[in-house]
């Protein structure tokens, strides 16, 4: 069992590394990194000839405005993957945080008769109808991350595991505290936007995992995914708790503000776990400060979504699987990055 899980994990890492390399290639100007990564891609998709040029397809893409490092990396990842394939025409629409605008952008993609759509909706519930419209028009929708409530609205869902993120963070925190022999730990949680289902899932996973150690969250508070709100909330929380044992911050972008607040308060008695896996957080982990770990919620999922959309449009399946067609849902694993493995993950990190 143990033996088995290892290679598969490595495979996934490889796949991730390829996607990241693609992202890097887009960030830099040359194509060099992509070239060197190409053999790894073959290794990742063991046995498949899916990378060979096939039927020409146009893939539409719509996502929220990139005013957050993670979202910015989403668009970049999708773009970079599209460039890898000569048979793909990438058709992104202007990113926006206005749901009304996103609906009409998707409508324009439908009337342009694209072969497949990759959609990261601002809000799954509110974009559900227009995605359904696309599906009804015969355009397969690859739903990225924020899920549509109606299964008729998408062909395949691919996204991160918010609950799993919480579990990973909870396990790390629980294990560390047990190691330290802390009896009644003060565990503080800084969430993202409290109203989003993803935040609630993360918190639930965190609480459930802590429960297995007999621990619970002492205080939680929501910020708004921005550096500034992270700083504000953390400053106040640090005042509320003179001694903290562990702190989980859901999001590495707002984590920059949280870390600044920790530094301003001159606090060192606790350890902190982040979320998402930004390059900045990884550098902090490497340098060995308060931030000890972060749990991934990798924007490379967008690159994967684009590849999946291409396969669906071309009527192909996925290597490694028995199936003739792409599966209906793909949930990425949330991995824990610590000082021990940070070097392997650093190339995957997105700049906030």
């Amino acid at each position, binding site marked *: 069992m143990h033996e088995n899980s290892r290679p598969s994990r490595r495979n996934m890492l490889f796949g991730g590394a390829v996607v990241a390399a693609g992202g890097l290639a887009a960030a830099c100007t040359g194509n060099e990194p992509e070239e060197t990564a190409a053999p790894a891609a073959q290794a990742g998709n063991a046995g498949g000839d899916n990378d060979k040029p096939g039927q020409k397809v146009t893939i539409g893409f719509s996502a929220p*405005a*990139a*005013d*957050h*490092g993670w979202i*910015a990396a989403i668009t970049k990842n999708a773009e970079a993957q599209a460039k890898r394939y000569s048979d793909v025409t990438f058709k992104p629409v202007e990113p926006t945080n206005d749901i009304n605008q996103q609906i009409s952008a998707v409508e324009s993609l439908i009337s342009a008769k694209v072969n497949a759509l990759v959609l990261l909706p601002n809000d799954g519930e509110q974009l559900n109808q227009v995605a359904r419209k696309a599906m009804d028009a015969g355009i397969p929708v690859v739903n990225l991350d924020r899920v549509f409530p109606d299964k008729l609205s998408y062909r395949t869902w691919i996204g991160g595991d918010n609950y799993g993120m919480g579990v990973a963070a909870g396990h790390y925190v629980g294990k560390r505290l047990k190691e330290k022999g802390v009896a009644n730990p003060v565990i503080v949680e800084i969430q993202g936007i*409290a*109203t989003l289902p993803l935040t609630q899932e993360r918190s639930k996973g965190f609480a459930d995992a802590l429960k297995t150690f007999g621990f619970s969250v002492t*205080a*939680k*508070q*929501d910020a*708004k995914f*921005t*550096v*500034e709100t*992270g*700083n*504000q*909330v953390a*400053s*106040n*929380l*640090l*005042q*509320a*708790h*003179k001694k903290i044992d562990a702190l989980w911050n859901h999001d590495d*972008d707002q984590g*920059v*503000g949280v870390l*600044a*607040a920790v*530094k*301003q*308060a*001159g606090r060192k008695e606790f350890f902190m776990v982040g979320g998402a896996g930004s390059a*900045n957080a990884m550098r902090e982990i490497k340098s060995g400060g308060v931030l000890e770990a972060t749990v991934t919620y990798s924007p490379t999922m967008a690159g994967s979504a684009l590849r999946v959309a291409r396969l669906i449009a071309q009527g192909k399946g996925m290597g490694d699987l028995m199936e003739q067609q792409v599966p209906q849902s793909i949930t990425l694993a949330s991995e824990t990055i610590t000082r021990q493995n940070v070097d392997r993950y650093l190339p995957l990190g997105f*700049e*906030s």
Partner: protein
Amino acid sequence: MTEAGIGPGKGVDDGPSGTRADAPGGGTEAGNGSGPGRGRLPWGRRNGANGATGGPGEIRHLGLVAALVLLALVGVVTQPDNFATSGNLVGILALAATIGVITVGMTFVIIGGGIDLSVGALMALASVWATTLATQSYGPVVMVVCAILVGTGAGLVNGMLIAYGRLVPFIATLAMLVAARGLAQRMSDRKTQLVRPENDAIEALSTTKVLGVPLVVFIFAAVAAAGWVLLNRTTFGRRTFAVGGNPEAARLAGINVRRQTLALYALSGLCCGIAAIIIMARTTTGSSTHGDLYELDAIAAVIIGGTLLTGGRGTLVGSILGVLVFTLITNLFILNGLQTSDQLIAKGVIIVIAVLLQRRGLRSPT
């Protein structure tokens, strides 16, 4: 009794007193049109009149102070170990610094009869501009100067559009809000720009403490003090009241209303630039998402501080007390583990109560 600008009769009545007000500043031709040559006295009287209507103003301050005391009591009772610590109180001041500095500028603009909706966006723009790679490679001093220049420059554009372009302040600054936010996003490519380690002097503003108080709090205090002197002890301040109370009367009194208006918006922009430095110090970043909805927080603080939205009357002390009330509420909510949504409700309720009390305060003496 009430505003100079309300009835034409009052306006005429006020004209000369406005004149005298400006007399020390040099306006002479209109000054000899009316009565006693002792310029200051009538102005003093008007100040007194202001005081009469400002009497409730003081009561209002008392009300705000009472609110602060009440909130502090709630803090002491609910969080006996955490609230009344020097760390927490200083923390509250540090949190209030950003919005506080912006509110100082906003108070001037609103007393001058205008409004500035662009403050949050200007702060974001200044922080982004100051943290661009180009600027950062010249070191922290250039970054600070850049933030101040960008803020003041954008404020000047606001002022030009309003004073010389004859745009309504609401429209001009709304346009600036949208455009500045867009420009900030464009410059930063919507990324959060970290202050680079070699510029740690910026971060030091919030980590370095003098007498246990971080430097950003001293910046806030300095801006507030300078603002108070400028508003209450200088010709500039008196002109601000005059222009906001009755621009026509102010113009007849020889005040260059346009230039004054221009200066007020530039001042507000300058405050945004200073606030950008504080937010850079606190978060170690420049970002186009900084200062989101700060315009509303600042306006709310000015209003509960007793400044009239119609201009002509107001106090800086009230505005700053208003900022402190809001920051204290946030602190209390987080100390007690309550969620931010409830905080917003509390803020809304406080704004309404404060304004209702002000109306009562205005009515009762008459």
